[in-house]
């Protein structure tokens, strides 16, 4: 069950808002400070990718984030610019090829750096691409009962 949804027009200024919402929800879900940093980074990178994709082909459509904080935190980032259908590692290749270079403002770092950060900080990461766009799901598990 989705508990919070956030949609924003693809402008860089809004990525910070998305990070702040993610951190507020993670805190509410009882996740620890070290995890909050991971969430802040992963959500920032995911939104950066989403923004690049959306600005290129669907600049008037929003980037949509669906949060669920009922057990740990899951964050689902969606765009609507059409992509080749793929899942798993293949979807990451589709994304790497689709994100314009230079991406929004970076000049030298390939999209691989954003994906490396995502993979390092999101314990669960599933990417699917389709004609309907990108769906990037990240998840952080509930804190162990002993820590509560």
């Amino acid at each position, binding site marked *: 069950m989705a508990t919070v949804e956030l949609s924003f027009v693809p402008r860089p*200024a809004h*990525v910070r808002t998305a*990070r702040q919402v993610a951190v507020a929800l993670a805190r509410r879900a009882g996740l620890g400070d070290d995890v909050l940093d991971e969430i802040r*980074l992963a959500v*920032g990178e995911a*939104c950066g990718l989403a923004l690049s994709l959306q600005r290129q082909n669907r600049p008037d459509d929003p980037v949509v984030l669906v949060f669920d904080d009922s057990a740990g935190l899951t964050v689902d980032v969606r765009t609507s610019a059409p992509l080749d259908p793929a899942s798993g590692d293949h979807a990451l290749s589709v994304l790497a090829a689709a994100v314009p270079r230079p991406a*929004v*403002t970076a000049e030298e*770092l390939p999209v691989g750096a954003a994906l490396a*950060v995502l993979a390092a900080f999101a314990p669960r990461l599933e990417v699917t691409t389709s004609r309907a766009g990108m769906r990037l799901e990240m998840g952080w598990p509930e804190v162990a009962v002993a820590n509560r």
Partner: protein
Amino acid sequence: MEDVVDLSLSTRPEGGRTVVEVAGEIDVYTAPKLREQLADLVDAGRNDIVVDMRGVEFLDSTGLGVLVGGLKRIRQNDGSMRLVCTQERILKIFRITGLTKVFPIHESVATAVAAGD
């Protein structure tokens, strides 16, 4: 409200190099400001730069891209770019992306300024 940029930059000469003090969040929105600052310094012939990042609270891959881009331009001019960074959360991002091999990272401005190339 898009002119509210949560990133502050200041520069000063120190020991023959230029120290750029960066504080706040370097992300997809604020990174262009840092890129501009680095480009201005290189254009002004200041090619030995120390970026003091101890006041940085957040850094994403866009910010890394700007640093790498700056380094590339500086190297074309036979200059140097050193970073000062002590926060584990920021250092981790450099390690994950393999950039600890690209940038000399120091614990203090003094050691960065004194370092030979």
